């Protein structure tokens, strides 16, 4: 999994406005007005299904209607990797699924229909734009110990990128 910050709001521009209007800078005042656009690559569709439950976020994701799926592009969870019998079952299932997908496409089934059998493990790419308030809620919820391992990794990475870009907004995570 890889995440990259494509742009973010210039916090100084917002602070200048507050200063001109005599309003004190507080993270809570500007959190609706500071946005981040991220590229996320090579995480599973299992994880992006969790990600898109977060609201007030704009997503554009690689479409399976148009791009062909390949066997190489899957995420294997650590619990599967470290379990010989489990990994064999996983690998056999993927071989069967991708074998069927390739046969369907070769037989003329449109990719938008052949994709119905693709696994949740398939890697995907997307861009996502959201404000600091939505991102903080996502980070608070998805870095929790109860969260699933892959989205925890993703949320921790997004948190780090946002914190580097706008440290003044990330001195503490406000729980909501």
């Amino acid at each position: 999994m890889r995440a990259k910050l494509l742009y973010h709001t210039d916090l100084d521009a917002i602070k200048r406005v507050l200063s001109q209007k005599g309003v004190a800078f507080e993270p809570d005042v500007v959190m609706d007005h500071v946005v981040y656009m991220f590229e996320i690559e090579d995480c599973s569709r299992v994880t992006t299904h969790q990600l898109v439950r977060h609201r007030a976020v704009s997503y554009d994701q690689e479409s399976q209607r148009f791009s062909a799926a390949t066997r190489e592009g899957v995420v294997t969870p650590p619990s599967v990797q470290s379990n010989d019998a489990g990994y064999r079952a996983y690998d056999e299932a993927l071989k069967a699924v991708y074998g069927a997908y390739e046969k369907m496409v070769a037989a003329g089934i449109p990719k938008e229909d052949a994709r119905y059998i693709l696994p949740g493990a398939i890697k995907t790419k997307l861009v996502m734009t959201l404000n600091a308030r939505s991102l903080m809620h996502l980070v608070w919820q998805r870095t929790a110990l109860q969260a699933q391992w892959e989205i925890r990794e993703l949320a921790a990475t997004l948190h780090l990128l946002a914190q580097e870009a706008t440290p003044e907004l990330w001195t503490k995570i406000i729980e909501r």
Partner: protein
Amino acid sequence: MKVLLAWSSPHPERTIAVAMRRCYSTKPIEDIETELEQKGPEYWKYLLGKALQDKSLDVLEHFVLTLVVEEVAPAEMGRLTRNFPYLRATQLGSNDWLLTLNARTLVELWKDPRGKSFAETIVAELSQKGVCPIFSELAFGVKVNAS
């Protein structure tokens, strides 16, 4: 009503094009950005025109504007944020606001009689600052000389 631009997404038309290409490309983001730089503004214009024509307005959401809005009473801002729930408004003074919206919401304001005059004021400010000449021309028919 007075509208002043505080900040906007860098390279708005290219950013929208990145979001469009993300849907159809399997390539890493750096390759998409290189491709868009090589093909240049005419290609961004082609993609943006296609998004507007197909009403695939989701890609416009990655172009974000933050504005200072002055001389708007709380009742009027309340009406706007009720009718257009994706507007984010923070009161800075009795009639002054910090307002953030994306380009999709701007298009929706423009097309709706309840938001048209507000949208026109925003578009005039964007034109004056030369922020998004291609977008302004395609979405609103406003000819702008890029700064």
